[in-house]
């Protein structure tokens, strides 16, 4: 395909330019990722993992790595939240906050690399497998800079880190890179918000790697609310060492074509992994959540809950895979996917998978698709609540199940309000 070669040429040009300037950064892992992308190419509809999501179609021939510059002038959601606020434009950090608690480092990847090459080289491109994911490989190959959040050993960051991601490039592929490292016994809470303001037809393909060392903990929330023209491929790659805790909550309310690729590798014993998600697809939105939990070590637990509401002519896709490798005994892995179709022209494709190679495990998955519970509707109507309102109540309750799992109260409140607004707008 032409576009793949075009992007590779641009990546190579960038790498050569960087070589010529003397600083080669983490060029070798970028070249590896470029090679992996070249071998894989963009997935077609015949690729099993993308059979329901033709995201490659959005790679039009004139797509380029060059981004337009600018700034977003708008009030940001979650601005009032108590915490450490960061903002990015086209995936790059606007500025480093002045006063950070001790043990917490936030910087651009380039700065981090200049400060401590060994650290960056040790942690970058470790959590993702280049050969597995063409989009993350492409992003890893292209991104010249990114963001590092590093929490030193035994540091508990008690303020929530809030990242406001802005995109001002309405043409061109934006490929942000994020690296979060929680050292031994460290804990941190991160909330990422992809707001509605900025370029409407943004195309973002991001790679985020999060690593939790022994006894560490990362609590992550992502809220995506870009416009209906936006395309988003979200490659999240989580690597966990023993006795660590990782939780993510991926809330997708916006975007025309969204693909969340969420990979988890609990690579130590006694790990706990929680992956939750909610999506509401309206209009002609296409939202796809692809999760993969790779239980490589015994005595771990994973919990997964994904819920979706699909309306109008939108499409919802869920693919959840749990892999228990040989000798990974005593794994408890639970997965549940629930979806509601609101309109006749909407579609849902779900594929919950279990691949189990160890016998002493407890694994289960459940998937349901249907309408609202008739009995519950009747119950509410019998109490004098009009049908419209009763439906809205039940839908909100359905969606709130996922939101309720978010720790930060003000984020929950923000999402409750958004859910109400979205669902009410659809009902009227």
């Amino acid at each position, binding site marked *: 395909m032409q576009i793949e070669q075009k992007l590779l040429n641009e990546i190579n040009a960038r790498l050569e330019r960087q070589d010529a300037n003397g600083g080669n950064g983490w060029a070798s892992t970028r070249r590896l990722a470029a090679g992996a992308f070249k071998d894989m190419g963009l997935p077609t509809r015949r690729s099993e993992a993308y059979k329901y999501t033709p995201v490659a179609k959005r790679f039009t021939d004139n797509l380029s790595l060059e981004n337009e510059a600018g700034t977003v002038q708008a009030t940001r959601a979650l601005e009032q939240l108590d915490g450490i606020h960061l903002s990015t434009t086209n995936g790059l950090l606007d500025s480093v906050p002045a006063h950070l608690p001790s043990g917490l480092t936030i910087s651009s990847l380039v700065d981090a690399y200049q400060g401590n090459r060994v650290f960056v080289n040790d942690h970058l491109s470790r959590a993702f497998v280049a050969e597995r994911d063409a989009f993350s490989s492409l992003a890893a190959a292209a991104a010249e800079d990114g963001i590092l959040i590093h929490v030193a050993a035994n540091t508990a960051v008690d303020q929530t880190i809030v990242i406001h991601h802005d995109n001002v490039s309405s043409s061109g592929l934006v490929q942000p890179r994020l690296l979060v490292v929680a050292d031994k016994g460290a804990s941190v809470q991160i909330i990422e918000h992809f707001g509605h303001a900025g370029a409407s037809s943004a195309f973002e393909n991001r790679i985020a790697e999060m690593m939790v060392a022994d006894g560490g903990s990362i609590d992550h929330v992502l809220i995506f609310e870009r416009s209906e023209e936006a395309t988003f491929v979200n490659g999240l790659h989580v690597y966990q060492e023993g006795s660590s805790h990782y939780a993510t909550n991926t809330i997708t309310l916006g975007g025309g074509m969204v693909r969340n690729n969420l990979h988890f590798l609990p690579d130590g014993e006694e790990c706990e992994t929680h992956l939750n998600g909610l999506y509401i697809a309206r209009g002609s939105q296409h939202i796809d959540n692809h999760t993969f939990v790779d239980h490589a070590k015994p005595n771990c637990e994973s919990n997964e809950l994904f819920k979706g509401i699909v309306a109008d002519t939108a499409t919802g896709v869920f693919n959840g895979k749990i892999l228990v490798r040989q000798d990974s005994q005593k794994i408890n892995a639970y997965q549940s996917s629930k979806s509601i179709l609101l309109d006749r022209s*909407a579609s849902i494709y779900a594929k919950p998978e279990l691949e189990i190679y160890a016998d002493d495990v407890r694994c289960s998955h459940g998937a349901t698709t249907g309408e609202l519970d008739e009995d519950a509707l009747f119950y509410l109507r019998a109490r004098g609540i009009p049908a419209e309102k009763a439906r809205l109540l039940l839908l909100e309750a359905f969606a709130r199940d996922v939101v309720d799992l978010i720790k930060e109260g003000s984020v929950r409140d923000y999402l409750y309000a958004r859910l109400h607004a979205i669902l009410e707008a659809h009902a009227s």
Partner: protein
Amino acid sequence: MSENGTELLHEVAQSEYKYGFVTDIESDKAPAGLSEDTIRFISAKKNEPSWLLEWRLRAYRHFVSLMEDGDGLPEWAHLNIPPIDFQAISYYSAPKQKPELESLDEVDPELIDTFNKLGIPLAEQERLVGIAVDVVMDSVSVTTTFNKELEKNGIIFCSFSEAVQNHPELIQKYLGSVVPHTDNFFAALNSAVFSDGSFCYIPKGVKCPVELSTYFRINEAGTGQFERTLIVADEDSYVSYLEGCTAPQRDENQLHAAVVEIVAHDDAEVKYSTIQNWYPGNSEGVGGIYNFVTKRGICQGDRSKISWTQLETGSSITWKYPSCILKGDDSVGEFYSVAFTKGMQQADTGTKMIHIGKNTSSTIISKGISAGKSQNSYRGLVKVNRGAENARNFSQCDSMLLGDRCGAHTFPYLEISNPTAKVEHEATTSKIGEDQIFYCLQRGISEQDAIKLIVNGFAKEILAMLPMEFAVEARNLLAIELEGSVG
């Protein structure tokens, strides 16, 4: 395993060679290879009408195009399929190379042992192992009485070749109507070279008085490799059809690619039960049957019902998805399956329920049991089309692992395009609970028996769906299969 046991196994293994399946019989056999000439040869041998030859050739050309596209064998299944040389196979052989044995004394003692455990009568044992039955048992007359009973009801039940000659209008109307030759790789191959099979037609308003079974038809037994079954149930009719048998089937063909098509008209019901116990290969996974089967039924008429029940214990590779297209309003599809794998066996099996009509419902219950180094996968699709109002589906897939070197996998696909649909899927994977074993041991039940008991309990729901006498044999079969794989 004890010294004696090992010796016995060794003996059994030896005995395969001793009696072999290489007895050279003068047979009408096409040279190995696959070409348009092979197809013309098969068609001419069977004295087929020209439309059928054309149909076969169309299928062959499609097969060739699939091979040329570089796709060939589909790769999506969770199977490790060794390359198959389609040119090394002889596609026509009549009669099949069957061992000519004089008496039961010459038969593999392991087989006899199994027969006894299954409780199969001596005379039938002889027939099953291929001893010239007419000497000991007048099976021909059994078949004849049976056929008379069917004829009286207007039921047509004959070999596919006979049906082509005697009922060409029915064959032409229904052949390929459920599984077109373009459906998949193996369906294309089967459509091109199918050797024989069964045809069954149940007329309007007739409830078939007996369980129809390939077992009753002597000529059926030798048509293994590329079999084609077509069952048509006309309005308001009922038939229960049974394929295979519990007895171990030894066959010289490595590759089996069968196609089964079922058509159910208004108010008709077809119950199709399978027990598959082909040779699974030895403990290293050498030999054994590759079983690539396309089975599909269409609930063409309103209020029709198709029900698949299967017990899969054999074959080294199983690739099989008995499916229902629920086209008629209020039609019902069911799939009940127990798949047991051990040794190096691989199974990727499940179903497809395609909801098209209004108020259709489907039930899927699948139980997978893996032991040894085997891989056992459930793969199923539930599709609710835009216009399928009030579709209901319930799926349950439970897997049990016996040992820590095997794998149990679940790959369900749910594609829903109608808001009134209610689709539920649940799956669990577990091993036999230590508390369950302990409970049995406490009551003086040996561990071996406890495992049998628990596995049988796990599969009971499904086995109960089989016709009664087969349910008993199926339970015994499962127990026998377990014997070699646990403890």
